[in-house]
């Protein structure tokens, strides 16, 4: 069989596979409407390997709530590996993904196909990103197919695709057949009068089916096609097909054998080109056909058929493999008992496999019958919803579910549940910036637990209490609560609460310059990594990094953030990674690496599910950069983040945003307007005893000329600046690798140092700061003020770099590649690379064209130089 108008796509796939095999892997995303021929194309491509290359094929199915990791089950079945055991045993998902990775690398190259990812569950999308982010290390081509007309812009698949590294992602959008091809086809079949193209829009499925069905002349719909095809089957075979049509995706042969006694009916349907058969499966030649048949069933028939299937599935021994399918058929059959019984189990399984959105959906399916549930059952469902919603960043929904659960508890006494709901809700409320209410709930939880036998819940509540005080920078009390939690955790031998408490204690000690703090945190990290407490491990990285950042140990901060993000990436831990990336952005800002800082900030802000608390740092970073560059929108961002930071009450964030606002007003030369607000905040900051926080705010008050006395606790560089020792301060900042702060100190010095500061500010791109310092120089009577910024990048819209321009010049002088290599002291290969870059940027194809381009566009410019 040859495919029409698909040659260029096949060539592209072959090229990509060759690259994947010899250089590094690629992800190919093939999209197009239903019936456009995505599967056909991929089958055609993979068939050409004829057993030479390992092909791993997985499919997502159209269940009411998709089965978590359905394609991985398919692939694992082919690999014949331990993955299925791991999936069933409930070991953490990161370990399963790692096993898969190892299995893939065992035999290379591979082609992995994941079909219909528009239906994928959350966990499969995570798998896609997991593989996608490592694809350049594999000799594997990963092909995914999806219907682009079914995904809106906020579809999780869109977000997942945007998270894949764009260098290794190729998109192929399949187009309908052209009018000419359709006309030729119609002619070959003697059907030129039917205006086939207008009827089908060139959709290959419709075209083929119409050509095969001579009797249809009216405008084609899939339904009509299907009916006409079904009419040609015997009535028994037709019934069999209808029965199979209620099974989404591929149906196992053993299942079919249980459903249909006479297997020859299936053969009949296969002969008529309706069904297809694979080793262990029977499925429809096209999913559209299946849906059309299913939709044509009468209500009563649909219920009967789905009930039949449900009965068979419920009889299986390994019932936990079928939860999602059981729910699907139970919903379609309207079987409430089955939904109530199995939806919570399906939800638990989905959650365990990381498909939290699907877990929520299962819980909600069961909750719909709340009038038939006991209070205890409703409570379980609500708690489940709250937990899963929180994990997927749906904070409002999580709060709603928990509050609903608390209402139920008024009529049903269970102090354990009540305490635990209060405790968890207090954490969720904190994420929603409602920490006053959150703390009230936490106190209620502690009170309840203290009246019960000693439990890990109580230990955890103590540790949460410690966390609350730590965030508010009341470190001594935080350490007290932390020790209480630690003691109880060790008594109960509960490692998880132990690492949580150690983490809090370590942070507080580090923040009060107690040497042993970092050791506590590292200990917490070590246990967490060993025990696979992924979230606690990432939390330890976050805290180690952000405390070092606060204390301006930028290299240490950089080290922990880089490692932490790697760890989070490797284990695919989303929680805390955003928080980490936001702080990492701030670290880069302090290092003076603004572009990197912007990229990290945008990475966080791009995530639609980022909780508001995690956006403060990245927005703050953008605000500061805008203010310094004199770019629009700085004040808007500052006010936005300020509202958030105050709502959260976290001192670290408050100091960051307040300092940004002060700097903005200073740059606008109207710091006076902000000093009242600044002073009232300063009063609060003083109570934290945090030398860096105090220093940062005291500095701006000093800049405004309103600092009455130097605070007792204050970090060294700020102290020196306030004392007028700008030179020593600038040296300290230089030693801390904070160029902007170094330049600020220099700008407070004599004429020469002010000029030096302008150089640094210009290098950083801080044009607002440059303007202000120049104005100050003029005001103090300095005559020789540096002129505008020296343009380092020459205006050169052709986009050539300096080196490429040099190469172009030599090419136009007729030099060969090896001559150019000698001239520029680079390798001939590099010359080759530059030349192809020049050709592609200028869209030229020969050396002669290059020479003439250079003559007409650059000679005048260069001669002026």
């Amino acid at each position, binding site marked *: 069989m040859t495919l029409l108008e698909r040659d260029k796509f096949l060539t592209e796939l072959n090229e990509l596979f060759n690259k994947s095999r010899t250089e590094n892997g690629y992800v190919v995303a093939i999209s197009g409407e239903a019936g456009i021929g995505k599967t056909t194309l991929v089958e055609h491509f993979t068939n050409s390997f004829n057993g030479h290359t390992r092909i791993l094929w997985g499919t997502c199915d159209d269940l009411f709530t998709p089965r978590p990791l359905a394609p991985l089950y398919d692939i694992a079945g082919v690999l014949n590996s331990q993955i299925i055991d791991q999936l069933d045993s409930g070991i953490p998902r990161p370990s399963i993904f790692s096993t898969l990775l190892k299995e893939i690398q065992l035999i290379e190259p591979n082609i992995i196909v994941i079909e219909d990812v528009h239906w994928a569950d959350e966990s499969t999308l995570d798998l896609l990103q997991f593989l996608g982010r490592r694809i350049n290390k594999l000799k594997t081509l990963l092909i995914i197919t999806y219907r682009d007309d079914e995904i809106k812009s906020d579809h999780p698949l869109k977000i997942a695709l945007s998270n894949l590294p764009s260098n290794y992602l190729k998109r192929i959008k399949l187009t309908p057949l052209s009018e000419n091809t359709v006309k030729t086809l119609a002619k070959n079949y003697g059907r030129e009068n039917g205006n086939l193209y207008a009827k089908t829009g060139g959709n290959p499925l419709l075209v083929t089916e119409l050509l095969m069905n001579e009797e249809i002349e009216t405008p084609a719909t899939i339904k009509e096609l299907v009916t006409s095809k079904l009419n040609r089957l015997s009535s028994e075979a037709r019934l069999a097909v209808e029965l199979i049509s209620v099974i989404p995706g591929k149906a196992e042969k053993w299942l079919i054998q249980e459903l249909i006694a006479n297997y020859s009916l299936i053969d009949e349907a296969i002969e008529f080109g309706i069904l297809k058969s694979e080793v262990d499966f029977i499925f429809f030649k096209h999913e559209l056909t299946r849906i059309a048949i299913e939709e044509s069933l009468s209500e009563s028939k649909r219920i009967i058929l789905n009930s039949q299937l449900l009965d068979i599935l419920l009889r299986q021994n390994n019932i936990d493999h079928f939860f999602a399918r059981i729910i699907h058929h139970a919903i379609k059959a309207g079987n409430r008992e089955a939904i109530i019984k199995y939806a919570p189990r399906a939800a638990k399984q989905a959650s365990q496999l990381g498909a939290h959105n699907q877990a929520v959906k299962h819980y909600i399916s069961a909750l719909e019958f709340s009038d038939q549930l006991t209070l205890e059952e409703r409570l379980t469902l609500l708690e489940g919803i709250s937990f899963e919603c929180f994990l997927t960043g749906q904070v409002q929904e999580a709060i709603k579910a928990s509050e609903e659960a608390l209402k139920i508890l008024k009529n049903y006494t269970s102090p354990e549940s009540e305490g635990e709901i209060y405790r968890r809700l207090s954490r969720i409320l904190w994420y929603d910036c409602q920490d006053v209410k959150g703390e009230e709930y936490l106190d209620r939880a502690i009170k309840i637990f203290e009246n019960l036998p000693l439990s890990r819940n109580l230990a955890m509540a103590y540790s949460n209490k410690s966390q609350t005080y730590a965030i508010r920078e009341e470190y001594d009390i935080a350490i007290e609560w932390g020790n209480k939690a630690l003691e109880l955790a060790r008594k109960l031998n509960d490692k998880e609460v132990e690492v949580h408490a150690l983490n809090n204690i370590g942070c507080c000690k580090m923040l009060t310059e107690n040497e042993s703090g970092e050791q506590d945190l590292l200990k917490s990290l070590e246990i967490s990594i060993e025990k696979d407490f992924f979230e606690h491990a990432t939390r330890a990285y976050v805290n180690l990094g952000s405390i070092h950042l606060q204390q301006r140990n930028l290299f240490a901060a950089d080290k922990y953030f880089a490692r932490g993000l790697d760890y989070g990436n490797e284990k695919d831990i989303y929680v805390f990674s955003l928080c980490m990336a936001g702080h990492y952005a701030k670290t880069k800002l302090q290092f003076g690496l603004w572009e990197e800082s912007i990229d990290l900030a945008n990475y966080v802000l791009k995530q639609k599910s980022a909780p508001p608390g995690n956006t403060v740092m990245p927005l703050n970073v953008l605000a500061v950069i805008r203010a310094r560059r004199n770019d*629009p929108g700085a004040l808007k961002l500052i006010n936005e983040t300020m509202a958030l930071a105050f709502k959260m009450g976290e001192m670290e964030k408050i100091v960051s945003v307040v300092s940004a606002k002060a700097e903005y007003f200073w740059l606008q030369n109207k710091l006076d307007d902000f000093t009242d607000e600044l002073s009232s905040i300063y009063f609060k900051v003083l109570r934290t005893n945090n030398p860096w926080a105090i220093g940062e705010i005291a500095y701006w008050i000093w800049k405004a000329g309103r600092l009455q006395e130097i605070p007792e606790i204050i970090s060294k560089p700020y102290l020196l600046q306030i004392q007028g020792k700008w030179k020593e301060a600038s040296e300290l900042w230089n030693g801390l690798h904070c160029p902007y702060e170094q330049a600020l100190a220099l700008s407070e010095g004599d004429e020469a140092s002010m000029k030096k500061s302008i150089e640094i500010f210009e290098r950083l791109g801080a044009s607002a700061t440059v303007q202000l310092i120049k104005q100050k120089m003029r005001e103090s009577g300095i005559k020789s003020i540096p002129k505008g910024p020296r343009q380092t990048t020459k*205006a050169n819209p052709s986009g050539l770099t300096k080196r490429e321009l040099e190469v172009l010049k030599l090419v136009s002088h007729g030099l060969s590649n090896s001559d150019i290599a000698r001239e520029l002291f680079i390798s001939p290969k590099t010359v080759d690379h530059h030349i192809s870059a020049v050709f592609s940027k200028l869209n030229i194809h020969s050396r002669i064209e290059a020479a003439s381009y250079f003559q007409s566009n650059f000679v005048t410019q260069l001669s002026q130089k």
Partner: protein
Amino acid sequence: MPRYVVERIFKDGLLIPMSPEGQRICLGVVDNNLEDNVTWVHSYVSDDKTKSFCIYDAPTPEAVRKAAGRNNLPVEKITEVNVLDPYFYI
């Protein structure tokens, strides 16, 4: 999407010939902008060709600068603007 006026200074003058090459350069800029989701609407260039006022649609000022960096174009100042139509009031 917000609209921005981007002021650029070209010390040696902005040299884009009215030729197929010039067209290629401009389209190259347009292509490069796509990566940052930035649209160059049009520009006003001073008579001596040393200053241009470029109208851009872009998600953020950072995106405008990134696109400028990609195109080796200088940025003097970015201002967020709205359209005012004088004939609207008539």
